[in-house]
């Protein structure tokens, strides 16, 4: 009793700790200014811009075809989906309807990208929580997807496969077989992921009930993607505003209501299953058709504003293009999922321990160039 009184009377001083910009658990160059009382976090103040590359300003000087390759470098783990967002926005402006073949191929490659991204996240969340094995398992399976991408478009990561009006090239003759091979392989490996990490006692204790986000807060903070869906916010753009071939496939939106780090983990695992199901529905009947609707060499969008939303691996990506009718856009804005998701961090980690902050950040799956642009 007396001890507790003494502890209560003891005056502790708050102090600042810099987490980042070069920190292994920050997934890149995120800098957090932590105000700490002992081990308890009082305030988290993100300081961004350590990888701010002025992409939005560069877009104002580039032609519409050139913008596409810059988006690869924003959220490089869902590069194909970023490309798709810009291409869909430009196609909306030009009033082009791409062929069914393009739509289906775009959807398949998008889902492969999402799988690769979630695999990497699964490897990294294990590392952040002290389990190095996950990293090796995830990267082994990820290489198979990279091989498919490389065969299709020549690049492993920053693909630049979409162009306004369609695709850069047709798919490789091996594409269908390689994808099927991968699906058969990964279907046996994903349960292994579950056995290795999901049921692990240490992992459960570090994520269950940690970093709880309510549905109201998720909507108010604009937290989308697995972060929003882990809190019960039905924000999957593939469902709410379908694009490409998502209106012709059946899949479940992964929704959990707990709102803690474990729920966000479960959302991603479930999304991997759903992605595989989407690919399976499409891979056997890729329709014939043109892979590119011809556009003029110099694209000039009619005067106006165009907005396109897509579901990237980290949440909703929005592309806002304001055109004045010239060959360059007047203003381009990327609404990146990571930026809005990051704004939640201070709200849900106040009063938690530093170790919980690491677990929460791992479940958010930040890609810093996506936040900084």
């Amino acid at each position, binding site marked *: 009793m007396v001890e507790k009184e003494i502890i209560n009377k003891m005056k502790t001083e708050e102090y600042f700790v810099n987490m980042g910009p070069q920190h292994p658990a920050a997934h890149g160059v995120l800098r957090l200014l932590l105000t700490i009382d002992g081990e308890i976090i009082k305030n988290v103040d993100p300081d961004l811009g350590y*990888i701010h590359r002025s992409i939005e*300003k560069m877009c104002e000087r580039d032609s519409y075809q050139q913008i596409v390759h810059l988006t690869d470098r924003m959220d490089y*783990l869902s590069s194909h989906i970023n490309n798709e967002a810009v291409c869909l926005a430009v196609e909306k402006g030009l009033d082009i309807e791409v062929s069914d073949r393009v739509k289906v191929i775009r959807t398949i490659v998008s889902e492969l990208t999402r799988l690769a991204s979630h695999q990497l996240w699964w490897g990294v969340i294990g590392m952040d929580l002290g389990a190095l094995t996950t990293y090796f398992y995830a990267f082994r399976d990820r*290489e198979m997807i990279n091989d498919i991408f490389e065969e299709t478009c020549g690049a492993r990561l920053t693909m630049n496969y979409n162009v306004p009006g369609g695709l850069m090239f047709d798919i490789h003759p091996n594409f269908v077989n390689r994808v099927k091979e991968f699906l058969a392989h990964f279907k046996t490996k994903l349960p292994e992921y579950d056995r290795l990490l999901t049921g692990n006692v240490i992992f459960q204790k570090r994520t269950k009930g940690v970093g709880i986000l309510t549905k109201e807060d998720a909507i108010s903070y604009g937290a989308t993607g697995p972060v929003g869906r882990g809190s019960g916010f039905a924000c999957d753009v593939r469902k709410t505003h379908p694009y490409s071939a998502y209106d012709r496939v059946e899949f479940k939106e992964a929704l959990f209501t707990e709102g803690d780090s474990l729920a966000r983990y479960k959302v991603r695992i479930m999304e991997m299953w759903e992605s595989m199901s989407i690919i399976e529905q499409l891979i056997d009947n890729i329709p014939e058709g043109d892979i590119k609707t011809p556009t003029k060499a110099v694209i000039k969008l009619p005067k106006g504003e165009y907005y396109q939303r897509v579901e990237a691996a980290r949440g909703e990506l929005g592309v806002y293009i304001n055109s004045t009718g010239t060959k360059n856009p007047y203003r381009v804005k990327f609404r990146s999922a990571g930026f809005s998701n990051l704004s939640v961090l201070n709200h849900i980690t106040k009063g938690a321990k530093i170790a919980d902050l690491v677990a929460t950040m791992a479940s958010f799956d930040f890609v810093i*160039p996506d936040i900084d642009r």
Partner: protein
Amino acid sequence: MGVDKRSFLKQIEPEGLNQVVPDDFPGKVIPGGNGGNIVVSTLDNVINWGRSNSLWPLYFGTSCCAIEMMQTGAPRHDFSRFGFEVARPSARQADLIIIAGTIVNKMAPVLRRLYDQMAEPKYVIAMGACAISGGPFFYNSYSVVKGADHIIPVDVYIPGCPPRPEALLEGMIMLQEKIKTENMSKKVNPIDGFDEGEGKFVK
């Protein structure tokens, strides 16, 4: 405890101690008897051999190239075959800094400080187009430093956007080759006389 080292080694390596010497050891090892060996080589060679085969990299992954760097450490490419696997998050324990990604103006002082914190000898690999020259962000970008060599001296450049894991391995082996030719008496601190060049921290 009471186990003679020599007899223990003989148990696991019946051929004797001579077999323990690796193939690429730069020098001749003559068994001297009585538990000792005579090594004929130069000190430079032996030290360089040790250094080049155990480079501890500091990961400075800022963007896309970091993923390919992680991929290089992953099962398929596995750079621990060449002694690079001890990745350090702290500059004070690292020999080598791999700049994997774009360096922007706000990051430049941080990179320089990390480099200054590293103990001699220290080496730098610039991985990817951004770290070499600014890459896709060379024109029209108000915040990107046009190449990491405006901040710190670079030993090996690896082109690509991002470079393949094989390219990173090639670059690292190239650095090993460079280290193997070093001469201790003539070695200078790379930061001495380092010219940051025109256009550093251009705003």
